[in-house]
């Protein structure tokens, strides 16, 4: 018997991270599909951390619901996570910290002692991975190949580290064999033909923006968006680029306005509290028509909320982030590829319609590592704003649509104005001008309906429509529902505002649109109902992503209730 899909959960403190990375990287190198999840407390060191590695023979969409194997580094981790183990799941515990009664499904290892035994106290992660590999029949040779590749760094100590890691693997595996407990063997890997990369969402967001010509970035540290600032500081370097840490999010947004005005392709990344501080500046960018991109990596809110947990509760505040009549373009990627192409599209949209665009990410994406097909960057077509090259005396804001933008040093000087303004950018309160300006600003959104969407089982009258990071778990739920014979369709897009051409009519034609989303109010379904779509949410607000099995049950119940309602009517 072999099993095609394993979920391994690590619970403990900081020590879980290196073991997670080692297992995930080794599995990906060996040709498995890997998908990780992590959640941390908001402190520098220590505190309960848990992570999860899913490795599968087949492509996967989600982080996996119930672990097959729990690695508990302390008693708290065991107590918290043991109830989540699937029936028959196995626990490996750190016997230096605590003991468990023998039940045939657990065994203890003193990982630190075994690492010391091989003369490399830092090899605890390899002891752990050795034991896990033994439990799930993951070939040690695959892990050794990864070890050798990773630690061949041209240093004198390479051989000693590689050998001791190998020895640590063997000791871990031996300890697992000695326990007499074995779960099942994972099937042989079935790597795809295509080239793969292994990356995080911050890598993809940074890369996508750069591929679209981004040359200006500022940011203020905030969880879980800091990774993007760090990525930019170290990678978007050299001539004609500017990356800098600001003194606040208020400074960030206004600095982007200055840079966008000056002709740069400018971006920042933040999370809820920073987005709130940017509110007035976003309104200014919309009003004065300055291209810029804000990445909002959602965490739990409001106020400081849950800085290191995931939630999809910023949708209202992204589409309507500022006071007054605004509706900001929002792209919400749901996986790593979409982080790349969505980020590039956000930069292009900002240039095209000359205004602010929000890329709406979330903590589950930012903490995920995944191996995916190497994206084809040539698919990104760089768009540059129209620049004014005529004579002075230009009427920057006269047209009813987007118009070429003068840049400092060039002709057509004007005032980019946050007050309602006439064609020169001079302040006015005339009703006719405010009406014209409002129509001009909203009309430009029509330039952005070139997004795409997925439409599976188009004949179904009831569809699921998740958004953002819930895409993966929802897709697994959708597949499970199809297997159960539930007649349901799937509609998905990362282009939440404006919707891709034709999508709103499609949604309106459905009897029911079921929106799984991680917030209390059901924000996306509420916005859809504003547009006269019969949408209802399935909500969760635990700070954690959906479990696909439970989600499938809740969707099925909603579908059944809907059908009963139709019969009774």
């Amino acid at each position, binding site marked *: 018997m072999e099993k095609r899909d394993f979920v391994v959960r690590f619970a403990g403190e900081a020590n879980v991270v290196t073991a997670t990375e080692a297992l995930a990287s080794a599995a990906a*190198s060996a040709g498995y599909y890997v998908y990780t999840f992590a959640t941390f407390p908001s402190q520098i060191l220590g505190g309960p951390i848990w992570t999860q590695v899913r490795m599968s023979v087949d492509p996967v969409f989600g982080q996996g619901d119930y672990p097959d194997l729990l690695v508990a580094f302390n008693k708290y981790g065991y107590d918290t996570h043991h109830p989540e183990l699937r029936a028959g799941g196995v626990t490996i515990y750190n016997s230096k910290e605590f003991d468990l009664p023998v039940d045939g499904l657990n065994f203890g290892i003193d990982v630190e002692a075994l690492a010391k035994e091989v003369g490399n106290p830092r090899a605890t992660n390899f002891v752990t991975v050795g034991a896990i590999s033994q439990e799930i029949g993951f070939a040690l040779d695959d892990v050794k190949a990864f070890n050798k590749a990773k630690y061949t760094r041209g240093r004198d100590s390479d051989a000693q580290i590689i050998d001791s890691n190998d020895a640590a693997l063997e000791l871990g595996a031996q300890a697992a064999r000695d326990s007499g407990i074995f779960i099942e063997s994972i099937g042989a890997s079935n790597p795809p033909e295509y*080239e*793969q*990369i*292994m*990356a995080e969402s911050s890598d993809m967001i940074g*890369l996508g923006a*750069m591929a679209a010509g981004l040359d*200006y970035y*500022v940011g203020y540290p905030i969880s879980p968006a800091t990774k993007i600032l760090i990525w930019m500081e170290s*990678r978007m*370097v*050299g*001539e*004609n*680029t*500017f990356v*800098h840490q*600001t*003194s*606040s999010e*208020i*400074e*960030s*947004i*206004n*600095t982007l*306005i*200055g*840079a966008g*005005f*000056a*002709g740069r392709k*400018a971006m920042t990344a933040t999370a809820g509290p920073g987005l709130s501080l940017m509110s*007035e*500046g976003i*309104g*200014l960018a919309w009003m004065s028509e300055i291209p810029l991109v804000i990445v909002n990596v959602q965490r739990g809110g409001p106020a400081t909320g849950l800085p290191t947990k995931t939630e999809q509760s910023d949708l209202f505040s992204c589409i309507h982030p500022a006071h007054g009549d605004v509706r900001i373009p929002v792209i919400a990627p749901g996986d790593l590829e979409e982080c790349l192409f969505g980020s590039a599209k956000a930069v292009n949209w900002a240039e095209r319609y000359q205004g602010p665009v929000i890329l709406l990410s979330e903590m589950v994406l930012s903490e995920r590592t995944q*191996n995916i097909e*190497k*994206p084809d*960057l040539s698919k990104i077509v760089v768009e540059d704003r129209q620049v004014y090259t005529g004579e*002075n005396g230009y009427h920057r804001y006269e047209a009813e649509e987007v118009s070429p933008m*003068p840049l*400092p*040093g*060039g*002709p057509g*000087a*004007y*005032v*980019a*104005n*946050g007050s309602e303004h*006439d064609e*020169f*950018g*001079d*302040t*006015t309160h005339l009703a006719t001008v405010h009406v014209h300006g409002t129509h001009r600003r909203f009309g430009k959104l029509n330039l952005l309906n070139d997004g795409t969407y997925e439409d599976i089982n188009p004949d179904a009258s009831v569809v699921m429509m998740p958004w953002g990071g819930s895409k993966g778990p929802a897709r697994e739920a959708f597949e499970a529902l199809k297997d159960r014979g539930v007649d349901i369709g799937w509609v998905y897009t990362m282009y939440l505002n404006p919707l891709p051409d034709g999508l709103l009519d499609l949604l309106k034609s459905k009897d029911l649109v079921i929106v799984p989303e991680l917030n209390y109010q059901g924000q996306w379904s509420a916005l859809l109902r504003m547009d006269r779509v019969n949408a209802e949410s399935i909500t969760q607000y635990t700070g954690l992503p959906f479990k696909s099995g439970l989600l499938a049950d809740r969707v099925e119940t909603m579908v059944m209730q809907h059908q009963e309602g139709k019969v009774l009517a």
Partner: protein
Amino acid sequence: MTTKNPNYDFKWCPGCGDFGVRRAVEFALNARNEKHETRMRDNVIVAGIGCSGNLVHLMEADEQPFGIHGIHGRTLPIALGVKSGSPDSNVIIVAGDGDFLSIGMEHIGPQAQRNLNVTAVIMDNGVYGLTKGQSSPTSNFGMVTSSTPFGKIEAALNPLSFYLEIGVSFIASHYSSKPRELSALIEEAMEHNGFSIVHVQSPCTTYNDTYEQLKGSKKKGIEPGIIDLPEDYDSSDRAQAMNVVSDGRVPLGVIFKENRPTLGDQYSSMTGRAPSKASPEKILATYAI
């Protein structure tokens, strides 16, 4: 109403100090353009919210500078973006005491530490004029305004002392009645390689008319509030500067000036040390399995 835009209907009150400041800014920009062989289009005026910010719409020259009239208090971050995004542009901030020193105060320190190469011309009238006369950070203690009907109960901020303490690398002070003299200071501030502030007493004839206090009145026995700098004044001497700004009167001239690298200088030197720019394709290749 301007030559450029006859329909523009904003007006300063008769006698407003901001008229003089506008003339001074225009003189200074013209002089600078001539000296550097640049054009108006190479200048960007970042305006605050309040009476003074409207200066950006009221420039009278045939060729206009670029302008941003943004949101209350955020001129400096906007200027940071313009200057770092377009280093060849000459960036001037025009704002009042409410905008710059109350809601916008948090931005002065960071630009001082960066030594951002921009020039701020601050029109201080000691009152919120556009909202019709509330107390501002520079309103005197005890001053009766619409928001302090029983007198202001906070001490007045000393802006020059604050600029000096927080590390602004060029500080000048003047008043609005002498546009030619003021213009020379603004020009010198724009020549300064670093963060420069020209703090101008610009009276509000409607809510806080301080002309008499500034110029004095022999008839009424009022001593002038303005004071010339001593002949041997050394603007590189921080201690002497501290002395002058603690006097309580309005000194006329360059109070303090020091030369140190700007944000632009430091950034260029840092990028000189950093590896050269990698293409997205090259970066992508680093994630290969």
